[in-house]
């Protein structure tokens, strides 16, 4: 009886451990931060790219319009891929595109915009990368759709046709 109980307990412990490890093997180990929705935009001060003026983040998102905040850099290859989509959005009257230039040099960023066009109404110059962290970003490119001072969508990685359609349907 005692041996039987021991055998049952050992077998069940073995099965539990096996299931945990088997499940662990199947899960991807790359963690992507949860896209927390309906978060209020962070409050911070930042330097503007062209004027160098110090501005409060709340001054940039004043009206109840839609804003597309895009974190980009001239050294980021996927940023080049998504740039044409941002240029299209700059023609859209329903949305204002704001940029955060992440850990870049001004001369490189200017050449990037001269070459591909400037879709941004305003650009924050984030030399140390802390403004991007304030937004909960962890790389470039990343985009945030903002409405009424609240982040309603977050896109990690470059924008593509599918995501552009999703944004367009959100701002209708």
């Amino acid at each position, binding site marked *: 009886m005692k041996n039987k109980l021991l055998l049952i307990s050992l077998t069940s412990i073995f099965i539990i451990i096996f299931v945990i490890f088997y499940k662990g093997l199947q899960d991807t180990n790359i963690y992507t931060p949860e896209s927390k929705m309906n978060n209020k935009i962070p409050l911070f001060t930042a330097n503007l790219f062209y004027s160098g003026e110090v501005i409060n983040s709340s001054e940039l998102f004043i009206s109840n319009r839609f804003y597309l905040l895009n974190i980009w850099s001239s050294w980021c290859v996927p940023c080049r891929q998504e740039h044409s989509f941002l240029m299209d959005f700059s023609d859209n009257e329903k949305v204002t595109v704001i940029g955060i230039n992440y*850990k870049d040099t001004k001369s490189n960023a200017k050449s990037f915009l001269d070459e591909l066009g400037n879709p941004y109404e305003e650009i924050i110059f984030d030399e140390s990368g802390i403004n991007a*962290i304030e937004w*909960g970003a962890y790389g470039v490119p990343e985009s945030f759709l903002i409405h009424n001072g609240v982040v309603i969508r977050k896109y990690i990685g470059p924008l593509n046709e599918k995501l552009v359609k999703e944004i367009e349907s959100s701002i209708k």
Partner: protein
Amino acid sequence: MKILRLSFIIFFIFSFNYLKASNEDMKSKITKNLRCLICQGQSVYDSDSEFANSLKVLVDKKLEEGFSENEIYVYFKDKYGEWILYDPGLNKNTYILWLLPILIFLIGGAIVIKSFIFKK
């Protein structure tokens, strides 16, 4: 005389606990407990990625602003979730992590008590 010397040594050793760690030490401590999300498996302290370097600058800034260690953890947890902390708190996702060692200890203890004490 010996007792006096001994108590002086003990007092000297214990007084180290009251020395306030400088911001640099605190920064190292905090960044060692934050996970780098780009090079996962490394702490922010060990990593030299763009993300980790920005995070180090922000930790420095927050310490200068007078944030406590705990407030900084809460700040980053709010932005990136519990996963960014190497020392997560007790919640519905981590309760197994916290309770399993206690459970194993209790079961093990019960087996030891049963086999060695009650047998006698």
